[in-house]
């Protein structure tokens, strides 16, 4: 019986591999590799996965440091079979790695052996009871940031394995509903020996990286077509050294692909062309009513343009309606996102010291996110264009991962929000 099924299994596997979903994990320093994998996915007709359950394969871009071990292992455990993994640290390794993934997914015997040898139910899932489903404690209430209704408070880490998210960034948030009450920033660094390779990547690719960040914001905002345009531009803007992947000769609907292939070598002309296209894209984003609506440009009238931080602090510490603080923070942040997005698409903008800028942004991030909902927080993080690979050793030490046990220590960080207590519920 099993023998006769072989041809059917092979046909199904080959059919499935044609649309392989690949989960991308970007380690600090793996930017160029990630961009190359994304390009190769498009060329193969594969797609990027949004989570391990959605993925057939996982590709780690860059060289992870020790702090990544647990995260990568858990990601692998959560992938249903057939599954395959690869790791690339340079664009030139990408075609071989993807070939390897396809071969591994097609190797039916190995996939069956893998499925037979693993626990299909994780070892740490307990039976639990009503108060401890699967052995987990129930979420508890906490004095509420919004309106005193004491919604359950959840500790939700965002990153590092998250699409459209800076490499290695972990944002340990405490959520009340969908609103961030507190947040703590950690960075999972790349392997130390590899970190200097980020330096050459940093030299000529600033335009490309800002276009990449813009594409992430646009994807998160749901503007997939504009995002795809930004990705095309990013690839055209990549320095030739990072573009060692040869684009296949397959015809592409976009004229930019031909731009990418034809003007190869004509560096200055090409850069000029990319700038012009970026400016055009910026105009398109600026004019788009849907994007303006999605980023709630019109709602910002409440916050005064001049006294940004001061008035925010004053509002946040006023004992008034905390729900309004939340709504206000959300509106303000969405407006920031739009401003940042237009800045990313500005071809004349310069980013002289991304390391210092990223450190400052990371330090300000926890306070900035209080009262902001998760979606807006993700938009903001993407729009900040955080370059975790540009951080120095002392920066990384400042954001080193800590054990979860000192979660209580967070109270000091987010104490401001916590101090407000609505004793009375509605009614």
């Amino acid at each position, binding site marked *: 019986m099993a023998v006769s099924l072989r041809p059917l299994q092979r046909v199904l596997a080959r059919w499935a591999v044609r649309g392989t979903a690949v989960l991308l994990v970007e380690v600090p320093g793996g930017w160029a590799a990630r961009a190359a994998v994304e390009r190769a996915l498009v060329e193969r007709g594969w797609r990027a996965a949004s989570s*391990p359950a959605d993925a057939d394969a996982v590709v780690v871009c860059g060289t992870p440091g020790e702090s990544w071990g647990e995260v990568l292992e858990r990601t692998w455990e959560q992938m249903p079979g057939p599954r395959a993994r690869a790791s690339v640290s340079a664009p030139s390794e990408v075609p071989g790695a993807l070939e390897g993934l396809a071969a591994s997914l097609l190797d*039916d015997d190995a996939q069956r052996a893998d499925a037979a040898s693993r626990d299909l139910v994780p070892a740490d899932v307990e039976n639990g009871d009503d108060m401890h*489903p699967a052995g987990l404690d129930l979420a508890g209430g906490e004095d509420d940031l919004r309106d005193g209704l004491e*919604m359950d408070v959840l500790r939700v*880490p965002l990153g590092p394995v*998250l699409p459209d998210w800076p490499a290695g960034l972990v944002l340990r948030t405490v959520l009340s509903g969908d609103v961030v009450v507190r947040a703590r920033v950690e960075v999972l660094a790349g392997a130390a020996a590899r970190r200097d390779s980020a330096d050459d990547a940093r030299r000529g690719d600033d335009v490309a990286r800002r276009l990449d960040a813009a594409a992430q914001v646009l994807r998160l905002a749901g503007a997939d077509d504009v995002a795809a345009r930004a990705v095309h531009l990013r690839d055209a803007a990549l320095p030739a050294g990072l573009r060692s992947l040869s684009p296949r000769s397959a015809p592409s609907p976009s004229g930019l692909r031909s731009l990418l292939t034809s003007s190869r070598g004509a560096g200055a002309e090409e850069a000029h062309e990319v700038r012009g296209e970026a400016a055009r894209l910026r105009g398109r984003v600026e004019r788009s009513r849907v994007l303006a609506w999605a980023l709630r440009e019109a709602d910002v009238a409440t916050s005064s343009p001049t006294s940004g931080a001061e008035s925010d602090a004053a509002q946040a510490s006023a004992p008034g309606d905390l729900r309004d603080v939340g709504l206000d923070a959300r509106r303000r942040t969405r407006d920031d996102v739009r401003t940042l997005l237009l800045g990313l698409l500005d071809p004349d903008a310069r980013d002289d010291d991304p390391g210092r800028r990223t450190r400052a942004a990371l330090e300000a991030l926890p306070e900035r996110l209080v009262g902001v909902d998760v979606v807006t927080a993700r938009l903001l993080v993407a729009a900040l264009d955080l370059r975790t690979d540009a951080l120095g050793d002392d920066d990384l030490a400042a954001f080193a991962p800590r054990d979860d046990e000192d979660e209580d220590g967070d109270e000091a960080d987010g104490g401001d929000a916590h101090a407000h207590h609505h004793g009375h519920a509605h009614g």
Partner: protein
Amino acid sequence: MTGAEATSGWAGLLAVLVLGGVGVTGAFAVHRLTAVAPRGLTAWPWLSGWHPSEHALSRYHARWYPVTVVFLAFDVEMLFMYPWVLVVADVGLSAVVEMFVFLGVLLLGVLWAHREGAFSWQ
């Protein structure tokens, strides 16, 4: 003639059922026989690579007061308007005035619910 038509109708239905049943069973059988692990994988909720620290059984508050007021304002309003429609022509102007005073009172509730954010989902 009509009997034959009825029979062919039933035959068609039977064919659809049989074909559908064979199709569904076949797809299920192919899945059972070809999947590397037909039982499927049990996994923790995906938290960007981390283990969940608590279970979110009741994350969102339903906000009963605004919900109740919105229900009263729209549903009960309709409830009273059905019988009112039947008599309004006979009773005349006073019935119209009374109904709109009633609607006005309910509208206050809607305004309150609006102020409480019952209509702004986020």
